[in-house]
């Protein structure tokens, strides 16, 4: 039987990030991937003369040359791959369109905290002071958490916690609750909440800390996309892994993890191959690991209860359009379009359970960041939404294709209505990814692309703060690298979650 220091299940962002750090530190690592293509939610596919992003596209918190700390770029620098990949800057943070009659809002917001706050003031006079206060709070939170995470004396940690207090006073509260204490026009608050769909948690529920960490990383550290789509980053991570003697096996589905005396020992592939490992890192959902891969008798009760207490977050639905008119001709000037029927996020979140009421979407025009993303005279537009129900498991096989196309048509209607840009007449290529598609290629339960819902007890902070204790009570030598873990799902966060997981494995090995 082959034996490895660490076997990683799943060659997505988290798995490849983790495997790379381990291999770089001398471990014998094997990554197992069920699909024929590494990358999971990051990657690309072709239709005709177009190449589409699978789902993830922009890396937030990419980093600035003058302020590289905390960014994904510093991780890529650590691996030595930053400059191997061609990057394109995303030109602006977002365009948000709220088409609620009477409360209409159509704003295009820039990167940079100063620029963002000034622009908000233009759209909503009287908002600049409040907006700056929010970003300052965000920065306080970030610095405090950074201090807590570092191996410094407890006294210093407590001092960091209490010094300015922004973190300790907001940590337990939602975005809406913190916003209620900020003197700012309603319109500015709506602008502030624009990114909520990227976490798929309404602002009444999402923790201020979590939301602010994301907003800060977008606005302050900007975002970028790989020119050759996310597949370039993935191919580069695979090459880097192999250059450190790490291995990747494609078309290798894991069907079991052997656990004896509370310690995981080996993985079993679909074809019966058994692979022994000191550590097993899962870049997939705990539901899958504890429900399907490990014998029920070996799963600790805590893990079962924790999984049962959790809720799946959004199930993905994406419409990919290859249009035979240029972005300029069509008037698609922005990269990201957040389209909301109104900014009652709680209501919209619940309406995203049925196709007939789901009018929320985030659309991307790749050409706005990368003019050469498609041939001259064409452009790529993709529209993403999420379903917060299991609607797509109620659809029958016979009606699946028509239902899928019907809802795609609805999403195009919504986009056209909100932007007043006609795209329907220029469709040269069309592909639609439903929750079934995501389930098919990644095995994710119910087609969930956003991990577990960040409920009031299960936010990023609570997960991070409980990680050590909960790991201690779990199966020994079993780890989670993905966005299903403490950082929640996202392009950059899945990568850093993988990185942090690798350091946990290395620390344990050192002991």
């Amino acid at each position: 039987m082959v034996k490895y220091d660490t076997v990683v299940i799943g060659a997505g962002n988290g798995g490849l990030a983790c495997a790379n750090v381990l291999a770089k530190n001398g471990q014998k690592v094997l990554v197992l991937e069920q699909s024929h293509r590494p990358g999971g939610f990051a990657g690309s596919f072709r239709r005709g003369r177009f190449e589409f992003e699978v789902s993830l596209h922009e890396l937030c918190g990419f980093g600035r040359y003058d302020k590289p700390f905390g960014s994904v770029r510093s991780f890529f620098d650590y691996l030595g791959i930053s400059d191997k990949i061609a990057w394109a800057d995303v030109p602006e943070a977002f365009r948000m369109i709220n088409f609620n009659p009477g409360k209409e809002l159509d704003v295009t917001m820039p990167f940079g905290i100063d620029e963002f706050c000034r622009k908000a003031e233009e759209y909503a006079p009287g908002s600049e002071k409040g907006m700056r206060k929010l970003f300052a709070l965000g920065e306080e939170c970030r610095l405090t958490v950074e201090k807590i995470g570092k191996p410094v004396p407890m006294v210093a940690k407590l001092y960091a916690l209490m010094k300015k207090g922004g973190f300790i006073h907001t940590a337990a509260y939602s975005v809406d609750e913190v916003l209620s204490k900020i003197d700012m026009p309603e319109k500015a608050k709506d602008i502030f909440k624009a990114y909520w769909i990227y976490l798929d948690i309404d602002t009444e529920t999402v923790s201020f800390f979590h939301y602010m960490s994301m907003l800060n990383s977008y606005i302050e550290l900007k975002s970028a996309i790989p020119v050759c789509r996310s597949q370039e980053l993935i191919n580069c991570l695979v090459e880097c892994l192999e250059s450190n003697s790490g291995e990747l096996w494609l078309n290798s589905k894991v069907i079991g993890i052997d656990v004896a005396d509370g310690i995981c020992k080996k993985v079993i592939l679909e074809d019966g191959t058994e692979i022994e490992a000191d550590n097993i890192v899962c870049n997939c959902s705990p539901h899958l690991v504890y429900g399907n891969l490990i014998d029920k008798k070996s799963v600790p009760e805590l893990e079962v209860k924790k999984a049962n207490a959790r809720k799946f977050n959004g199930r993905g639905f994406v419409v990919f359009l290859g249009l035979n008119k240029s972005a300029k001709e069509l008037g698609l000037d922005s990269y990201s379009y957040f389209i909301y029927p109104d900014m009652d996020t709680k209501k919209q979140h619940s309406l995203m359970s049925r196709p007939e009421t789901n009018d929320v979407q985030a659309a991307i025009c790749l050409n706005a960041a990368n003019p050469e993303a498609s041939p001259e005279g064409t452009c790529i537009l993709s529209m993403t939404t999420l379903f917060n129900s299991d609607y797509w498991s109620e659809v029958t096989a016979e009606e699946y294709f028509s239902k899928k196309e019907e809802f795609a048509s609805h999403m195009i209607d919504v986009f056209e209505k909100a932007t007043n840009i006609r795209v329907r007449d220029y469709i040269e290529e069309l592909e639609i990814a439903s929750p079934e598609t995501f389930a098919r290629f990644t095995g994710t339960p119910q087609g969930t692309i956003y991990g577990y819902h960040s409920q009031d007890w299960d936010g990023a902070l609570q997960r991070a703060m409980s990680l050590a204790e909960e790991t201690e009570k779990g199966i020994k030598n079993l780890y989670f690298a993905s966005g299903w873990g403490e950082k929640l799902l996202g392009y950059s966060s899945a990568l850093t979650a993988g990185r942090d997981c690798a350091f946990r494995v290395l620390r344990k090995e050192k002991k």
Partner: protein
Amino acid sequence: MGRLIIRSFSEDIKNFRNMIPYRKKKIEEASATALPRNYGVNELSAKLHPDKQRVRISSVEALDGRTKIITFSSADKTSLAPFRAGQGINIKVGTETEFFPVVSVPDDKDYSIIVSAACEDAVSELLLNADEKTELEISGPTGLFYYSQLRDGNSVVLICDFSGVASAISICRYLSGRADTSVRVIFVGEEENPGVCGLFENLSENICFFREKDTDGIYERASENMNTPSALFVSGKDAFCGKTAALFDDSDFIRGRIRMYISDPETKNASAEKYSCQVLYRNESFSFECFANETLLAAFERNNIPTQAKCKVGECGYCRCKLVEGDVESVLCNGIDSMRSADKKYGFIHPCRSFPKTDIKVKL
């Protein structure tokens, strides 16, 4: 900046300190029922895209001396995966896999295919000699040559030769009777295919059928008395498809691209030069011979290499692998290069469209 207090100084601290105990309580209160093994969406996904389906031949109908329509029904109690009009299935016999477009329509539930002795491959030969009730294994429905209302619109032109007739019939039958959709079919073939032409009979009024002897009259037929079609589907042999597409080269005939199904993608006239091929798969290595006039994928299949493949025209990317050493010639089907830009940059190839030019080493 002054300190921001949300509820009150002490309540904020209290709530902060309560975060973890609250989490513990929530977990403690949760059910300890074992986690589900299956999920509805994942089950539906598996039903829609099975790797394999066990089928039984339920009927064999001779169209003429050399051509038969063979219908498959599910051999177990499950129903066959639904397909989209124009798609097909792969059937493997021994080490050889052949693709057959489905001639039936999604509502039929069963799959019918047209098998012709003219194909001269082992799979067609076996099927032509098979009796009713014979059981075999086929793939799930596959292929990007299908009609989509949202993309292809309501004014469709289908042009096919004998080898591409099945997918054209399927799309025709699917659109038959739709008052808002007009379909024009141009079949290019000889009189000796009366059985095949008969399949276009009894379709509703919105389908116009034409037969042409050769490709010369196609453009006229396709465009006469017709507004700009919203989609053009061409199916048949590589040379036929190329010739047909060229007829529309300089026109604004359709809004999208010409969609093609090529029935004989592997053809290449080259010397039968022999090379060595080494395949690295997991921690194993396989070595065998390959030839300049066959695709690498054909060489892999002949040697039972555990490779993945679906379309064989370079489109689906399932056979994607890394060229470690050597050089190949990539021959595109229908002029469209379906390699990912990043895959090109990192030395990947699609073996189904790659012919060896030197000794080869690849990693699966």
